[in-house]
């Protein structure tokens, strides 16, 4: 039962790998990597039950957090082509001026 779930998750991971290799859009790849990460987290949980040791869950916990950071970094990079931009809600001084000029 657990082993069957493990195999299912591995199959899903392989399919994600196929999507990652095929692309075609960059966002498809990002989606594939993120989804691969989610499946990996689940795989680690299930696998640690399969082998009867709970240590895998710690790593799953860690990976659930790290996957998020990686995805955000990639997207940030592609949205702004820089890691050094604040995603603040306040418009920058530039845009405020522009908006003022329009109104």
């Amino acid at each position, binding site marked *: 039962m657990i082993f069957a779930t493990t195999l299912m998750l591995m199959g899903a991971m392989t399919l994600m790998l196929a999507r990652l290799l095929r692309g075609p859009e*960059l966002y498809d790849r*990002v989606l594939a990597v993120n989804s691969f990460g989610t499946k990996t987290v689940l795989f680690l949980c299930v*696998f640690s039950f399969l082998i009867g040791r709970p240590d895998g869950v*710690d790593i799953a916990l*860690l*990976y659930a957090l790290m996957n998020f*950071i*990686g995805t955000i970094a990639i997207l940030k990079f592609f949205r702004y082509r820089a*890691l050094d931009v604040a*995603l603040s809600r306040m418009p920058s001084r530039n845009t405020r001026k522009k908006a003022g000029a329009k109104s």
Partner: protein
Amino acid sequence: MNADFITPLDAFTIIDLILMLMLLIVGLAIVRLNDIFAIVMLAGVYSLVSALWFVSLDAVDVAFTEAAVGAGISTVLMLGAMLLSSRTALPAKPVRKWASFFIVLATGAALMYAVTDMPSFGDPLSAPNAYVGLEYLKRSLPDTEIPNVVSSVLASYRGYDTLGETSVILTAGLGVMLILGMGGKINGQLKKKAIDYDNADAQAHHTVLRVVSKMMIPLIVLYGFYVQFHGDFGPGGGFQAGVIIASAVILYALIFGVDAAKAAVPPLVVRIGAALGVLIYGGTGIAGLILGSNYLDYNVLDPHSAPHGQELGIMSIEIGVLITVCSVMLVIFYGFTSRQPDITDKDW
């Protein structure tokens, strides 16, 4: 070599085989692709799959480190470097391809020849497994009262090694600082914003990201400390915790801007921390010397009980490792982000 030992074909071996197959696919894909962005992502997936394999090979501490480093820090650093360089690789020339193929073939053949001398997979009586490893397993708990043998070997039995590794990390941080600057002035002038991000509506849409990250960042730091202090009983320790806490700050920088991160964790603090960690590590050794024993001998730290002294010493040097690793990762991150991207739109 123990000729009687036969590797069983059970569920774990099947999972191992599938993981190896995935590794091979990813490796070959990296060879074939020229889009550096895809390569960076594949490298992340590669390290992730090998982390899975490490879990299946009982190396939970290693898997922990690999997952923390490969998924978080490495990807961010690679992207930071990509940002300052170009995006696609030129395909290699056929001559070069074939030449390297033959070199690789020859090296591979030589290594394959060496495989015949290796112990069987999973053999408990093989030379690497039977002697010194078993000895550590037997002695660790009476000597140090720490169940996680990896932690005790890392911090106590092989303390010199780890001191060396920590110094290497500090040196790498210094190297990046020397190469990329300390995040201040470049060529005598402060960094100016090269790109105009004047789409206020795009920024307004990131409410979800900001709120969720605000919730996640404390949890990540908390988890980092759990990993640090639970490292004696489960997988974890200073190296992993340092990487995790550094990635929390990196996430903060990604969402709220590097300037905000620098206000929260100033570069000066980070630079001092990088050295301070090694100082704590070395100082623990000196404390042993002062109390009348050898360098990095923790037995004397507690005059009443040697194992407790060991525990104390291990705790202390793990904190040193945590501070150094965390600080160096941040030094590197600040170094990369302080560079001004001079890439033009037509490069993309």
